[in-house]
């Protein structure tokens, strides 16, 4: 019943792995002296510099915590108010519909730039921004997933005497899990990109700031190194979500 992790079947992973191997072969052995990309050996040597000059550990903690901590907190908040979201009526319904439509028109990148511009040099704003984006995402995800519910479950359990609280807790919440997980993979990637862009413009902490500094210092080795490390960490996050999906979601939506 448990579905296998299918990440290695994705063509993108094969392409990235091929590019990586090609880079090692081409720039380590065939073209060690060039003005295009640094030698893999040089990149390897620059690892200690990444820790000393760019404070990798501190920035790693800040980026990771500003993605996953607010994301989980936002989930817990939305989970606690899920019955109002599933209710599909009142102020919350119109708010979610409004936000969904606005999100379609205003690019996230513009929102990032505006927030950085308004709250420059504020350390906590990155966490608040990530929390806000996550709350809105979870809210829209739950709302739209709730719309795909199987009315027959509701009819059957209502006739058995179930009230809305029972239906939300024992039926609908479980029913929408596969839909939520499917959406979560894309959101995970999007949140990473938004936070990296945020940090890039904010220029205070995080991987985005390291990327900006490597560009400013013209440090191609560190830039290449970060370009390998960041997708790898994103992949680890993806794998964790995939693991949870395989463990807990073993059925398909009917």
């Amino acid at each position, binding site marked *: *019943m448990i579905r296998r992790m299918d990440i290695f079947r994705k063509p993108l992973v094969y392409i990235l792995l091929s590019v990586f191997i090609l880079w090692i072969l081409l720039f380590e052995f065939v073209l060690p002296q060039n003005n295009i990309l640094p030698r893999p050996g040089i990149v390897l040597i620059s690892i200690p510099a990444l820790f000393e000059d760019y404070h990798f550990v501190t920035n790693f903690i800040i980026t990771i915590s500003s993605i996953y901590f607010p994301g989980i907190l936002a989930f817990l908040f939305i989970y606690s108010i899920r019955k109002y979201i599933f209710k599909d009526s009142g102020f919350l319904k119109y708010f979610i519909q409004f936000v969904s439509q606005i999100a379609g028109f205003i690019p996230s990148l513009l929102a990032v730039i505006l927030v950085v511009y308004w709250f420059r040099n504020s350390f906590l704003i990155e966490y608040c921004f990530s929390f806000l984006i996550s709350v809105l995402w979870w809210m829209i995800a739950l709302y739209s997933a709730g719309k795909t519910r*199987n009315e*027959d*479950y509701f*009819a*059957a*359990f*209502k*006739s*058995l*005497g*179930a009230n809305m609280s*029972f239906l939300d807790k*024992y*039926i609908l919440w*479980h029913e929408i*899990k596969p839909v939520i997980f499917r959406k979560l993979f894309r959101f995970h990637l999007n949140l990473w990109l938004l936070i990296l862009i945020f940090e890039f413009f904010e220029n205070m902490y995080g991987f985005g700031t390291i990327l900006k500094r490597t560009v400013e210092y013209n440090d191609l080795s560190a830039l290449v190194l970060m370009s390998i490390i960041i997708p790898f960490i994103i992949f680890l996050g993806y794998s964790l979500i995939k693991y949870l999906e395989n463990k807990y979601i*073993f*059925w*398909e939506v*009917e």
Partner: protein
Amino acid sequence: MINQENILEISNITKIFSDEHGTKRKVLEGISFTVPVSSPKITSIIAPFGAGKSTLFKIIAGIETATKGEVILKKEKYLQPNGKIVLIPERSSTLPWLNVRKNIELLYRLETCRKNNGSHDINELIALVGLSGYENHYPYNSSFGFRFRISLARALLLNPIVLLLDDCFRKMDVATREEIYNLLEFVSKKVDTHFLLATTNIIEAIRLSGRILLMSKAPGRIYKEIYVTDEHITDYNDSRFNKYRQSIEKAFSEEKQLGSINFSI
């Protein structure tokens, strides 16, 4: 006097739906029938697709409100669903994330179950529907027959007075359907519950029920009632079987409803 002997009384049910433009559509019109204490344990309603069977069953189960009319269960108006009239809908209502036992046990969390009705033993129910040994199986990817057995056991846990089966066998293959027919006949003899079956299949209705109500389409209304007095006809080529079949076909053709009824096994 007659009312006192009825388990279920459906009185003049009319349902009108309105769309967002305010256009009204009458789905059910003045549906009235009774299920007396003495009536056969399984009663069928045959109707074409789109006649409003599901709407009627939802109204009977108290999930949907009727525009006009009322449902009376054992002399009391049935206004709120409380597990005394239970519906098994057309699509599967078994929860794929719970195994067979937990699908049934979930009802212990319901107040209706705790209060009075949940008197059946789960192991007995599982055995009754033929799922002994499958308690830990998950219904995901299982046959419609397997899922129906779970739904049936779960519904019977509450010891309902009436069990509504809304075209539950339509998606099953012929062999599974025969198995389920036998199961339903067996179960109906073992429990006090009366079964009300909505179907588009004439064969199914004759095979299972002692009483058949014919329902027309647009708007749905009951226009004929046929009693199957010969018990347990399992041979579809039996002359008695054909007698009922012809009489139902004739009634449908008179009402010009024939095109959307299923005559096949």
